């Protein structure tokens, strides 16, 4: 870029705008850093006034998150053998013993199963539909595409009533399969729209060449188009996964025990004597961290994913 360019901002402008943006970024990051920090605080430190920035880190929150505990009397404490590992030691110091694992692990596992299951299904079905919409003349194509998009305008609570009734009839309530199918249906709109955009960008000539070489249409699809669309499919998948991972409304209304995911569970973590904020923060940290990592890796594809492909940069 030449130094005479009229559109290149001056050094001073760059400095000022950089400073303002960084200030905003630091402020906006504070709540997230606070979550991570609180996870390593002791319960006393977490509710100290003034709020503690520097503190003695402890894994107590994480131990509380993953275990259920019962209080023991000093007599009992003396009669028990020495704690055999560090987390038992932490619990014993509070005059408690570990009674068993908490439900967090199970909830996290549910989130994983439902998240990956629904992502796989919505990508599988979405790729097929997107390919058909992109390459063939499907009757009433525009109407179908708009219909797929409009399913996103329904408030989840509005559909939740009949789905609740329907699932009860079918025996799908509070089941992994029920939630996977539901999230797939919600995610399909995103995956069809995004993937259609990606497949539209693949030149027709590749397929034509394959067809001339004697491939069937189906072979051309999975040997030529799919590899070309791999990046698009991967980033669409991560967006579907993030949606299913974060979803709360359906999860809280349609699941209670068996298939409950982590978002409705984390706010219900309550320790002995009031909300155990370090444990809540520990649960939130474990749950949010994967998404943060994905976001950083995905930053180039972000815009397209969150705008349904409406903005392509």
């Amino acid at each position, binding site marked *: 870029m030449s130094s005479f*360019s*009229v559109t290149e*901002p001056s050094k001073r402008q*760059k400095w000022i*705008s*950089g400073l303002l*943006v960084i200030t905003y970024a630091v402020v*906006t990051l*504070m709540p997230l850093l*606070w*979550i991570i920090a*609180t996870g390593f605080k002791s319960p006393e430190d977490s509710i100290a006034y003034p709020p503690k920035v520097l503190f003695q880190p402890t894994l107590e929150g994480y131990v509380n998150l993953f275990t259920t505990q019962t209080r023991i009397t000093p007599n009992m404490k003396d009669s028990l053998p020495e704690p055999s590992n560090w987390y038992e030691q932490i619990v014993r110091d509070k005059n408690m013993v570990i009674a068993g694992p908490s439900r967090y692990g199970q909830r996290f596992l549910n989130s994983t199963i439902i998240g990956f299951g629904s992502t796989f299904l919505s990508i599988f*079905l979405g790729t097929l539909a997107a390919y*058909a919409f992109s390459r*063939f*003349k499907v009757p009433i194509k525009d109407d*179908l595409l708009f219909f*797929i998009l409009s399913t996103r*305008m*329904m*408030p*989840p*609570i509005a*559909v*939740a*009533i*009949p*789905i609740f009734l*329907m699932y009860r009839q079918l025996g799908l309530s509070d089941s992994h399969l029920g939630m996977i*199918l*539901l999230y797939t*249906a919600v995610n*399909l709109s995103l995956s069809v729209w995004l993937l259609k955009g990606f497949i539209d960008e693949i030149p*027709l000539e590749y*397929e*034509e060449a394959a067809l*001339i070489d*004697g491939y*069937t*249409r189906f*072979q051309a699809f999975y040997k030529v188009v799919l590899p070309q669309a791999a990046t698009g499919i991967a980033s669409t998948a991560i967006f579907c996964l993030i949606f299913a*991972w*974060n979803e*709360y*409304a359906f999860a809280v*209304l349609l699941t209670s025990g068996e298939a409950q995911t982590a*978002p409705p569970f984390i*706010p219900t973590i309550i320790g002995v004597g009031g909300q155990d904020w370090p444990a809540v923060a520990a649960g*939130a940290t474990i*749950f*949010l961290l994967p*998404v*943060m990592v*994905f976001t950083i890796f995905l*930053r180039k594809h*972000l*815009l397209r994913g*969150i*705008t349904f492909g409406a903005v392509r*940069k």
Partner: protein
Amino acid sequence: MSGKAVGGVVKATPSNISRKIQGLSDRAIAWIFVAPTIFLLLAINIFPLIWTIRLSFTNFRVNRMNADVKWVGLRNYERILSDPDIWLTMQATAHFLFWTLFFQVLIGFALAYLINKKFKGNDLWTTIIVLPMMLSPAVVGNFWTFLYQPQIGLFNYVVGFFSGVDPASFSMIGSVNLAPWAIVIVDTWMWTPFVMLICLAGLRSIPDSIYEAAECDRASKWRQFWTITIPMVLPFLMLAVLFRGIENFKMFDLVVQLTGGGPGSITELTSINLKREAFEKWRTGYASAYAVILFVTIFGLASIYVKALNKVKER
């Protein structure tokens, strides 16, 4: 192969080649590929929607499955539209919608404008700013109740530190005056990056040559901003407002975790109100009518807005 339904590639391919293509016809493949998606959407979106519409004309209650279900016609709709509480809920939603959109557009555009100055490392900082919107609103909303605690909460402490107000003297989510702003603040914190990203795409789509031409015509920077930057970004900005508007009209997870609609029902947005009718009071028929009204409202407003958006784009 019948000519009309078979399109795309094959149409452009010479007939001697298309004859060589083996296997299923394109038409069959198209249907096999689209059918599962349509089927699933019909089963999990459209069928329930029709069911909701049907229920909305009855007095059905899920917690009394065996009671007689009576057809009540439009009575549910009449009751909802004449219920003053529903209008209070609508007002709360309008307040929330207006101010979140206002702040998000203002801050989002400003940030995009600054980032577009291409200072060193702008990529990294953009990614950091984007983080909040990718996270689970329920989990983050729940944690914000901790930040909002009087005295020990970080938010109250920081506000107290800079303004001199005693951090124990106010409760963002416990006070009738502050709670509507508490949810606006968190939503703005979470979703401003969304508006920012779209504005940034808009700003980057403006070719340098337009500014260069304006410079030759000796247009002031101020004038360039209002006659080039703003009109060129406007369609993008309107798109961002559409997406955020729809999402915030449906807002549930973040606010239900933050305030649960309280104190009283001052932050009870329509979705929260609907959830209360449907899953706490179990007035299924009534709630179904409510859901239909909400969906029609969102759909109607969005359609009008999209028309306006297209007009702006055409200009």
